[in-house]
């Protein structure tokens, strides 16, 4: 037995439970703090439905541009801390016998993610599973945060553009693996006239990725707000004859927006997270010039890389 058995965890001990509570607090408290912050900073209004961008908490006007700490940044950090808490909670108390049910869930997630990456990117990229899972989880939870009444960070073009630029640099890294000369030659193919179009095509990838994600989330938010305000107006004109405080209440707004939110917020948000991760995988895996790279490696007496798609 060369392998050392993992120490058994006592899931009933006070120390374990204390840690568990700490992780749960790490999951929930950032979101609560964001809600409190939003309530504190929202100016008093007439309670109507408003369509607005991210709120700005702190602003600094420098000579060149304006530096802001906006709602989307704060919410992204809250989501990040919350996901970290979730991961710590799910991997807390791992054991070989899987005493806790959460271990099964964690194993399922990891396994699914590794299979997804292997099937779409090939065996060479199997270390990419954590990155893909991270970007999918961050995107999905950022979109779903609007369910508790907060501004979705993905409804801000700067956030999605940041992620898309990150992916763009990764694509470029793998494109340059085939050598700078080969890459430049590829831009001028099939005939040199296509060079500007090829160049635009390079930059169109991150732009379309960012706008797709942002546009889907934002359109859902705008349509929800429009329907909310329309129903308010309708109930004011139809139910205005009701006595007392009932006439001021938008009674028709009960129900229908919640049903629409299942599509616009939940389905659309999770779908776009999956698509963003999928496009990341396909773009990065498709960017590698295998023949050129292997030719270069052969010149330097390095072993050939084979990307086996399982």
């Amino acid at each position, binding site marked *: 037995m060369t392998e050392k058995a993992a120490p058994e965890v006592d899931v009933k001990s006070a120390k374990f439970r204390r840690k568990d509570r700490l992780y749960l607090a790490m999951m929930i408290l950032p979101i609560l703090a964001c809600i409190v912050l939003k309530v504190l900073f929202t100016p008093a209004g007439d309670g109507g439905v408003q*369509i607005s961008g991210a709120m700005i908490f702190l602003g600094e006007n420098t000579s060149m541009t304006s530096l802001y700490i906006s709602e989307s940044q704060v919410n992204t950090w809250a989501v990040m801390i919350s996901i970290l808490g979730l991961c710590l909670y799910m991997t807390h108390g791992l054991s070989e016998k899987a005493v806790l049910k959460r271990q099964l869930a964690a194993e399922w997630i990891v396994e699914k993610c590794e299979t997804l990456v292997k099937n779409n990117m090939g065996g060479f990229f199997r270390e990419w599973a954590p990155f893909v899972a991270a970007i999918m989880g961050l995107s999905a939870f950022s979109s779903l945060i609007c369910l508790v009444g907060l501004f979705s960070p993905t409804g801000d073009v700067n956030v999605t553009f940041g992620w898309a630029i990150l992916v763009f640099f990764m694509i470029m890294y793998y494109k340059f693996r085939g050598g700078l000369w080969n890459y430049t030659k590829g831009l001028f193919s099939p005939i040199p006239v296509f060079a500007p179009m090829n160049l635009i095509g390079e930059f169109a990838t991150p732009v*379309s990725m960012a*706008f*797709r994600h*942002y*546009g*889907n989330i*934002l*359109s859902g938010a*705008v349509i929800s707000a429009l329907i909310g305000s329309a129903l308010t107006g309708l109930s004011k004109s139809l139910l205005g004859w009701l006595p007392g405080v009932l006439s001021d209440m938008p009674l028709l707004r009960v129900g229908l927006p919640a049903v629409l939110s299942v599509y616009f917020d939940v389905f659309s948000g999770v*779908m*776009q997270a999956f*698509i963003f991760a*999928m*496009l990341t995988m396909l773009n990065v895996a498709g960017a590698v010039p295998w023949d050129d790279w292997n030719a270069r490696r052969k010149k330097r007496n390095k072993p050939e890389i084979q990307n086996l798609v399982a």
Partner: protein
Amino acid sequence: MLELAMGIMLGLLGLGAGCAMIAGIGPGIGEGNAVAKACEAIGRQPECKSDVTSTMIMGCAIAETTGLYGLIVAILLIFVAPGTFTGILKDAIK
């Protein structure tokens, strides 16, 4: 004079936003075609339903991009452009 100019500007911005949303026709037709073909494929081979469905949703989401470009232009015209153009108009008329 300023009121007239502002009225014309806001009206034209609304008109432009409406015209931008004509872009929604393309993805509508395209996604409809995609879903129709996916239904045909599932009808032929019901056992590969899950693969076809996931590929179809993926393709639909990518085909949506052009429509979303139109949507973003429309949203910019409605929510962002009036603020910018009002400043320009005031400077020009003053």
